[in-house]
């Protein structure tokens, strides 16, 4: 099978990339999706707040997905559902499998990686104790409640204050469970401020910062957890332990970009994002292989995911049409003072540079985001690790750059 652009994954990034590749002139665009429906995680994110920037509407996840799926339906892009991609090679050959075609190969002129991310589970954080039923990730609980119609428990403790955990605190409360509290190991919340307000405060659910779960108890089913305060090095403080009776522990302790296929394709991965090292065109280190959305770096907002999908789709269509063959000259984009993550990691002089910046530490005072050496300074009232900062640097400003671009956050 041949394709101009093959998109792997049909969450928001993949859908937008496929639509945009088609709009940019690619005739033969394919979408490969392992589930039986398009839309990815949007289908279970039934809350609102999607597409405010892109469509100027306050959609829920399923509404946002359906709008994109309708747009995709008008394009003639072919979608393969129930289709698992098992391998991607650097020469842009994809191996996939489904029950209709069996194992088959696609030779594509360009590829967009849009596999999204997965949740960190109990194994990634190492909580001591027994291994009973009732310990699950917030996203798993979200699927059980919102799609399959099961309530995973009645007395719930949530570890981690990521957005999905906060959203699930409200969701489980509305469905009749009691959420005893949200415990966050850091001294600042992981999720968006608005979710603290409308998911926790609205329902009087307490948030305990600088706390973690230090033991899980129960044989067949969770019977309770021990929570402890932690010090500034995130070590549990002896004597601060408290037992909380519950039947369920939800984990909302971070997301990891899903890059098994990227590794097989020889794509260089970044140690700071755990996603591909990407240029502003969303091209990875392998020419013709692009990546976008949460497979690249974990974004807070679907609007940002869509923006990277748009760039990946447009540029993948350009590569497929022969606009360039090899990665041209590029400079590095590197994190400076108080920056934990900066995305993309390379600039190759083709597009405007849209920077996504995650601060390393919270600063509750006015800050300046500096982009050196272009002498660009953007002011913000604060910088917080749970709120990615987006800064656009116009292409014209970057024409004469020779060395690396460094991004920093400093107090004013």
């Amino acid at each position: 099978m041949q394709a101009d652009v093959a998109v792997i994954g049909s969450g928001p990034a993949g859908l937008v990339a496929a639509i945009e590749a088609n709009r940019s002139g690619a005739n033969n665009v394919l979408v490969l999706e392992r589930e039986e429906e398009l839309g990815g995680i949007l289908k279970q994110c039934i809350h609102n707040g999607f597409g405010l920037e892109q469509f100027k509407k306050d959609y829920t996840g399923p509404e946002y997905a359906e709008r994109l799926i309708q747009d995709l339906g008008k394009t003639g892009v072919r979608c393969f559902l129930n289709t698992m991609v098992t391998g991607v090679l650097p020469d842009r050959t994809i191996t996939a499998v489904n029950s209709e075609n069996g194992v088959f190969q696609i030779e594509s002129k360009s590829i967009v990686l849009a596999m999204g991310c997965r949740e960190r589970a109990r194994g990634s954080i190492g909580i001591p104790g027994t291994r009973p039923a009732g310990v699950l990730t917030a996203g798993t609980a979200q699927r059980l409640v919102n799609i399959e119609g099961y309530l995973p428990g009645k007395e719930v403790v949530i570890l981690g204050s990521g957005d999905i955990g906060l959203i699930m605190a409200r969701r489980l409360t509305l469905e009749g469970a009691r959420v005893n509290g949200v415990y966050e190991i850091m001294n600042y919340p992981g999720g968006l401020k608005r979710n603290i307000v409308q998911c926790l405060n609205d329902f009087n659910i307490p948030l305990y910062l600088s706390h973690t779960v230090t033991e899980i108890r129960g044989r067949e089913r969770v019977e309770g957890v021990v929570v402890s305060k932690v010090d500034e090095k995130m070590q549990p403080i002896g004597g601060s332990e408290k037992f909380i009776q519950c039947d369920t522990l939800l984990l909302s302790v971070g997301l990891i970009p899903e890059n098994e296929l990227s590794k097989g394709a020889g794509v260089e991965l970044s140690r700071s994002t755990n996603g591909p090292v990407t240029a502003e065109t969303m091209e990875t280190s392998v020419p013709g292989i692009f990546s976008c959305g949460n497979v690249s770096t974990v974004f807070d907002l679907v609007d940002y995911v869509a923006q990277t999908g748009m760039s990946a789709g447009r540029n993948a269509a350009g590569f497929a049409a022969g606009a360039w063959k090899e990665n041209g000259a590029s400079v590095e984009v590197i994190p400076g003072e108080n920056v934990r993550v900066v995305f993309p990691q390379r600039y190759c002089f083709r597009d405007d540079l849209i920077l996504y910046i995650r601060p390393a530490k919270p600063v509750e005072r006015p800050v300046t985001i500096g982009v050196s050496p272009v002498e660009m300074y953007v002011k913000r009232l604060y910088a917080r690790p749970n709120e990615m900062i987006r800064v656009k640097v116009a292409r014209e400003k970057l024409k004469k750059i020779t060395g690396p671009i460094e991004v920093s956050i400093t107090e004013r």
Partner: protein
Amino acid sequence: MDIEKKHFTCVTCPVGCEVDVELQNSSIVSMKGNKCDKVKEFVLQELKEPMRVLTTTVRIEGAKWAMLPVRTDKPIPKRLLLQAIGELAGIDLKAPVHISEMIIRDIAGSGANIVATRTMDLRSEAGRARQRNDASAG
């Protein structure tokens, strides 16, 4: 009358502006920290009657999935959220349902309607067979 100081986090959009507001007779004398004009509207509404969009699910028969996601078509008073959930618990709904289709009119006397947030087709034969297989495997 004295000036009262209050702190709000606007939940209108994901930016979540945190504002310090000075109030006199429930009107805003000054506001600091907002990035757009919608925050003022939000603060005045919070003082009068906090309003929220309710998003939840309802059981649906004959569809691919057990649950249909729904929402209120406009914000409703926060104090009515649990009452609205209660009214949705017993409803009888069958696939197919189209996106934006009204499920319940005037939920909890709020004046807002509950609408479907996705299209839910009838469950196909293949889907039924798969579910039977899943059930017997489990």
